[in-house]
C-alpha cells in the first residue's frame, strides 16, 4: 500500500516542520513539537527493520541460551541454583515456540528470552575468570557482543549531539567487520 508506513511518517514530519511549527508562538509548544519530531524520527529509524531485527535477535538469543544451558549443565553438576536455571531455560525455550511475525508476538518472545538472559548474565558474571569455566567466559563475551549490537541500533537524538563521535566510531568498526566478513 502506498504511501507506505515510512512514507506516511515522513509526511507527518514534513507537515509538522513546514506547516504546524511556524504557527506555534510559545517556546513550550515548539519544544513539544520538537519532541514529537524526534519521536517520529525514532519510529522511522526502525520502521522497516523492526520485525527483522526482533526475529534475528530472538534467534541469536535462543542460540546463546541453548549454549549457556549446555555449558552450565556440564560445568556445574550439583549446583542447585544453577541447575534450576538450566531447567528454566529448557522449559522456556520449549514453550517459546511462536511463528507469528506480528511485532507484538516477536517482542513478547524477545522479552521472555531477555529475561532469561538477565539471569544467565548474572550467573556468568559470578563464574567468569574461574578455572574450569572458560566456555562460560566465551559465552559471556558473546552475550555482551549481542547486547552491544542491540544498544547501537536505531536512531537516537544523542547520535547528533553527545554520542556523535562515539557512534561514528561504532559504525565505522561495524563497517570494517562487515568488510572483513565479505572478504572471508
Amino acid at each position, binding site marked *: 500500500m502506498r504511501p507506505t508506513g515510512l512514507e506516511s511518517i515522513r509526511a507527518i514530519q514534513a507537515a509538522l516542520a513546514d506547516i504546524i511549527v511556524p504557527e506555534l508562538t510559545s517556546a513550550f509548544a515548539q519544544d513539544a513539537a520538537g519532541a514529537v519530531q524526534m519521536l517520529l524520527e525514532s519510529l522511522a529509524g526502525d520502521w522497516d527493520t523492526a520485525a527483522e531485527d526482533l526475529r534475528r535477535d530472538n534467534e541469536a538469543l535462543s542460540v546463546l541460551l541453548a549454549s549457556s544451558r549446555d555449558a552450565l549443565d556440564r560445568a556445574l553438576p550439583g549446583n542447585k541454583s544453577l541447575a534450576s536455571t538450566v531447567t528454566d531455560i529448557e522449559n522456556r525455550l520449549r514453550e517459546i515456540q511462536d511463528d507469528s511475525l506480528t511485532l507484538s508476538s516477536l517482542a513478547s518472545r524477545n522479552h521472555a528470552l531477555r529475561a532469561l538472559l*538477565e539471569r544467565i548474565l548474572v550467573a556468568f558474571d559470578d563464574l567468569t575468570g574461574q578455572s574450569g569455566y572458560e566456555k562460560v567466559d566465551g559465552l559471556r563475551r558473546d552475550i555482551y557482543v549481542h*547486547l552491544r549490537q542491540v544498544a547501537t*541500533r536505531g536512531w537516537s537524538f*544523542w547520535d*547528533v549531539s553527545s554520542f556523535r563521535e562515539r557512534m561514528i566510531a561504532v559504525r565505522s568498526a561495524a563497517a570494517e567487520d562487515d568488510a572483513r566478513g565479505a572478504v572471508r
Partner: protein
Amino acid sequence: MLEQRIQTYLSTKLDTSDGVAISALHRIPGGFSRETWSFDARWREYGREVHRGFVLRRDPDASLLVTDRDVEFRVMDAVAVHGVPVPKMYWLENDGSALDRPFFVMERIDGCETHPSKVLMDPRFFSARDRLAQEFVDILVRIHAFDWRAGGLASLGVPASEAGCAIGEIQKWEAVVDRDSLEPQPVLRAAFRWLRRNLPPPAQRIVLVHADYRTGNFLCNSEGEIKGVLDWEMTHLGDPMEDIAWSCMRPWRWLGDEKIGGLMERADFFRSYQQAGGFAIAADAVRFWEVLGNVKFAAILLTGARSFCDGRTRNPLMALVGRNVARLELEIMDLMGV
C-alpha cells in the same frame, strides 16, 4: 485562569493593598520533574511601583522524577548564603489548594541562557568558555564545602557512614529500576552487580551533593558568569565524587567529543577542581560513579517511559526518552569494560 489564580495568590503574599498585576505568563520548556512557569508581576509597595520577574515551579501530573519540592526549596535557600549562585527563593506551598498542585515561587534571573545549544554553540558565548569552565568548577567546590549541618540540612538524611554513600545510591536506583522497568534490563542488572563488586573507597567526607550538576543546569551570561545553579531536585548528602562523575557523563558532552560538559578536557576539570580546594580525585572512584550515574540516568528515563505507558502523562518527551535508554546501555558497557 492560571494567571488569575497566581494574581490572587501573590496578593496574599506581597505587602500591598492595591493588588498585583500579572503579565507575560508562559510555560518554560524543560524542567521535567516539575512544570516551570515564568511571569512578570507589578504592584505598589510603600507608594513605590515594583516590577519583578518570577518563576513558579509546580508539581507535574507525571514526571521523570519523583522528588520532594520541600528539599529543593530548602537547599536552594540554604546554599545561597554560602556564595552558591541560585535564584532567590520566595514562597513554598506544600498545600496545593492555591494552584491545584503544590508549588514554589522563586526569582527569575534575566539576561542569561541555560540551554547547551546557546551556552556552547552560540558565537556570543565562545570567548567566555574558559571563564565559564572555571566558574563551573569553583561553584562545585563551594557546594561541596558547604557546612550542611550548620545550614540545617542534616534532615536530608545523613548516610550511615562515609563507606555507605555508594551502596545507598545503588539501592536507591535499583529500586527505581525494579519499580519502573517495563522490559527485562540485562545490562542494568549486570551493572548493578558490577557496581556492588567495584565499590569505591569511602567518601573523603560526606558533603552536599547537587546530583544533577552539569552543563544545561545553570544560567550564565555571555561573559561566562554563572548567575544561577538550577535543578536541585535530586540533591542529597553523599560522596563528592558523585557530582564529579555526573558532570563527566557522555550525555552532557554536548559537542559530541570528549570535552566534559562541552567545556574542558577531563584532566583539566580534575586539576582545576583540586586546585580550587576540592577533594582529591581518584580515577577508579570516578569510574564507579560514572557507571552509577549512567545507570541512574537510565532509571530516570525508565520512569518517564513508565509514566507515559501507564497513561499518567501525554508528554511526548516521556515517550521519546524511553527509546533512548539503549545508548546509555552502550556507555555503561564501555565503562564496565565488557
